[in-house]
C-alpha cells in the first residue's frame, strides 16, 4: 500500500516501543472472557474514538464472540468492518489513491479557494504549506493569503513557507482585518489567474463567539468576490485532541460549514480516533493526514490503513 509508510516510519522512531498489537489480545482457541473484552475496550478508548463508538464495537463483539472460542480472523474482521462502517458514514469516501487531489472539490474553471481553520496550535500553517506543496507538485499554481493577523509572527511563518515553496503570498500588517486579507488574496489570485488560493486563518477556540463570527465574515467576503468560493473549508484537527474534537467540528461547521478534515500530527503516539466520532456525529470526512514535520508529510486519508494503524502501539 505504501500510504502509511511514513506514519509507520514515524512510529519506529523509538525502538523501545512494545509491539503489542491488539490482535495479540485474543489468542486463537482461548475463550473470549469478560476480562479480555474489557481489556479490548480499554484499547478502543485509548484511540480517542469516544465512549459511544467504543461501546458499539464492544457490544458487537460481546454479542458475537463472548464466551466462545476466539477465532482471530473473525474477531478482527468484525472489528475492522464495524470501524470502517463508522468511518465511512453514509457516503463512501474513498479517495482515488492515484490522484492526491481527489478529495478536493476544485472549481471547474478559474480559481479554487480553500479556507483553512482550526483551534490554536493544531498545525494550520504547517498543513497549509504542505497542502500548497502537494498542489504545486500536481501542477497547480498556488497563492496564499496570510489571514492569521492575530498571533505574533504568524504572517512571517507563512511568508517563510511561501518563499521555500516559491509561491505568491498576500499579507497585511499584523492586527489588520483578516477578511481584508482574504479579499486582497482573492483579488491577487484572480489577477494572477492562480489555480488555487489557500486562505490561512488565526487559531481560535470554537467557543469564542465573536471570533467565530469573524470567520463567517471571512467566508462571506470570499464568496462575494468569487462566486461558489470557498470551494473547500478544511478544519485542521490535532491528532492528540480528545473528545473536544467533536465540539470543534460542530462549532466550526456551524459557522463556516466545513467540507473536510486535515488530521495533523499523526506521527506521534496519538491515534486520532476522534475522527470516527466526528464522522458519525457530523458526517465530516477526513481528507488528508499530517504524518511528519517535513513538507512532503501530507498523505491522502485511507480508512483501511487508518484502521490498521489504530491498534498498533
Amino acid at each position, binding site marked *: 500500500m505504501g500510504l502509511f509508510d511514513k506514519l509507520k516510519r514515524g512510529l519506529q522512531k523509538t525502538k523501545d516501543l512494545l509491539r503489542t498489537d491488539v490482535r495479540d489480545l485474543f489468542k486463537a482457541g482461548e475463550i473470549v472472557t469478560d476480562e479480555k473484552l474489557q481489556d479490548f475496550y480499554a484499547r478502543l478508548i485509548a484511540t480517542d474514538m469516544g465512549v459511544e463508538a467504543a461501546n458499539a464495537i464492544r457490544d458487537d463483539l460481546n454479542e458475537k464472540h463472548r464466551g466462545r472460542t476466539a477465532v482471530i480472523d473473525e474477531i478482527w474482521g468484525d472489528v475492522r468492518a464495524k470501524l470502517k462502517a463508522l468511518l465511512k458514514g453514509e457516503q463512501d469516501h474513498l479517495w482515488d489513491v492515484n490522484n492526491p487531489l481527489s478529495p478536493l472539490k476544485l472549481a471547474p474553471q478559474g480559481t479554487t479557494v480553500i479556507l483553512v481553520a482550526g483551534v490554536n496550535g493544531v498545525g494550520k500553517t504547517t498543513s497549509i504549506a504542505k497542502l500548497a506543496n502537494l498542489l504545486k507538485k500536481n501542477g497547480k499554481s498556488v497563492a496564499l493569503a496570510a489571514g492569521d493577523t492575530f498571533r505574533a*509572527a504568524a504572517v512571517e511563518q507563512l*511568508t517563510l513557507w511561501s518563499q521555500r515553496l516559491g509561491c505568491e503570498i498576500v499579507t497585511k500588517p499584523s492586527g489588520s482585518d483578516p477578511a481584508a486579507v482574504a479579499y486582497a488574496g482573492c483579488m491577487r489570485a484572480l489577477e494572477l489567474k492562480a489555480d488555487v488560493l489557500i486562505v490561512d486563518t488565526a487559531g481560535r477556540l470554537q467557543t469564542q463567539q465573536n471570533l467565530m463570527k469573524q470567520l463567517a465574515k471571512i467566508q462571506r467576503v470570499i464568496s462575494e468576490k468569487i462566486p461558489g468560493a470557498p470551494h473547500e473549508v478544511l478544519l485542521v484537527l490535532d491528532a*492528540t485532541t480528545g473528545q*473536544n*474534537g467533536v465540539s470543534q467540528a460542530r462549532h466550526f461547521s456551524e459557522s463556516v460549514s466545513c467540507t473536510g478534515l486535515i488530521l495533523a500530527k499523526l506521527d506521534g503516539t496519538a491515534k486520532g480516533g*476522534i475522527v470516527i466520532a466526528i464522522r458519525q456525529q457530523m458526517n465530516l470526512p477526513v481528507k488528508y493526514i499530517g504524518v511528519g514535520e517535513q513538507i512532503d508529510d501530507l498523505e491522502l486519508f485511507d480508512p483501511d490503513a487508518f484502521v490498521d494503524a489504530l491498534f498498533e502501539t
Partner: protein
Amino acid sequence: MFESISKGLENALSLFRGQGKLTETNVQLALRAVTQALLEADVNFTVAQEFTERVTEAAVGREVLKSLDPYQQFVGIVYHELVNLMGPVDHSLHLRRGELVVLMLCGLQGSGKTTTCGKLARMLQESQWRPMLVAADLQRPAAIDQLKIIGEQLGVPVYSEPAGAGAVKVCQNGVAAARQADNIDVVILDTAGRLHIDAELMQELEQIDLKISPQQILLVCDSMTGQDAVNSAKAFNEALELDGVILTKLDGDARGGAALSVKAVTGVPIKFIGVGEQLDKLEPFHPDRMAGRILGMGDVLTLVEKAQREFDAEQMALQQEKMMRGKFTLVDFRNTMGQIKKLGPLQQIMKMIPGMGKIAEVMGNSDIDPEEDLKQIEGIIDSMTPRERENPDLIDISRRRRIAEGSGTDPADINKLLKEFSQMSGMMQSMAGMSKLQQLRQIKQMADVGVFNPGADLKFQKNRSDRGPLDKRAEQEKKKKMRKEAKKQRKKNRR
C-alpha cells in the same frame, strides 16, 4: 471548562435523589455513569478505573451520616477523591532573590509554549522579578520572531541567535548573557515543540537539562488532549523529571480530563492554567476549586479573587458610599458594567457563580449575547446628557426619542433600561450594608431575574433547585432507560 464532566456527573448523581441510603446497587449505577463521564472527558481509561475503585471503596459500606442524604454524601466522596487525584498543588516556582533562576518550558507542538512563556514573564514582572526570554525554538519558522514580539509587548528582553546555532548552545549563551546583564533574575527557555517519541529531539532536551540544569522544568500541556496525554507526559517526565505542568487553552469548552490523567500518571503538580490568548490569562491551578466546579458547586473563590484583583478598590469604595447614601446614578451603573466587563466574558463569570452555570448554558445555546447587551446599555447611557444621567426622571418622551436616535436603539429599549436601572439601584442600596457572602447571593438573585441580561427573556424560575433537572419528563425518561439497561445487564450477568 470541565462542563461535560459536570453534566455527566450531575446526571449520575441525580439518581440518588429521593433515595434513602447508599447501597451497593445505587452506588454501582452511579459509578458506571461517573466512569463514562470521565472517559467522555478524556480522562485516561486506567485513571478513570482507579478513580471509581477508590470511590467505591470509600462509598460502599460507609455509615450514612444522619445529617446528610445519600446524594450529599456521595458528592462529598467523589469531590474528595477528585481533589486527591488532582492535588496537592505547589504554585511556587522556587525562585530566590539574588540568584539567577532558569525555567525551562517544554511540550508537544502547538501546546502553547511560546505564549505561556510570555504569560509567565508577565506574571513574574507583576511580582517584581526581572525575567528574560530565550528563543530556543529553532524548529518552527518564525518562532523566534513570535517570542521577540511578545518580549516587546511586555518590555522583557529576548535572547536569540540567528538560525544555524544548536538549541543547547543558544540556551547556554542565553543564560550566560543573563548572568552578565545583572538586571535579570529569571531566565525562561522557550524550547521547540517536539514529539515525545522523537529520540533525537528528546535527547536535545536532556542535553539542555544536563548543561544548564534549570531549577524548574515545566511541561506545557493542551487541555484538549485526549487519551494520549498520559503517553507524552510520561515520556517527558522520564526524560527530564518535570517539576510542574501548565495546562493551556482552558478557556474553551475542553473537558480537560487531561488534568486528571497527567497528574495521576506523572505525580507532577499542575501549577498554572492558561485561560485566554491575552498575556495576562494565566492563573494558579486549584484542585479543590476545579473539583467543586466539576461537581457543579461553582467556583466562588476564583471569582472573588479575580474580582479583588481587577476591581479598582477606590472606585468601588466611592460607589459603595454613594449606594449607602442611596444615590446610585446611571453613571455609576455604567461604571459597574465596565467593571464587570473587565472580569472577562460574562458567561465565563457566570459559570463561576454556583447555580448560574445553567443560565450561562442556556444563554450559550441561544442567540443571546450578554456582551452585545452590555454594549447597547453603554451606548444608551453615553447618549444621555450629564444631567439626564444624574437624574433619569428628567427623561421624557422627546428626550427618550433623542437618546434612542443617538444610540441607534429603540425608545422601548430605553424604557426597559430605565426600569431595570431603578430595580437595580434599589438592590444596590440594599446590598451596600451586606457582607461579601450576602452580596454574592444577591448577585445570583439578580442574575436569576435577568439583570445582567436585560434583553433576554430567560424562562428561569427562581425557586428551582440549583442542581435539579431542567426537564422533569426527560429526566424521568432517562431514569427509566437506565433502569431498563440495568435490568438487561443483570439478565446478561445471570446468563
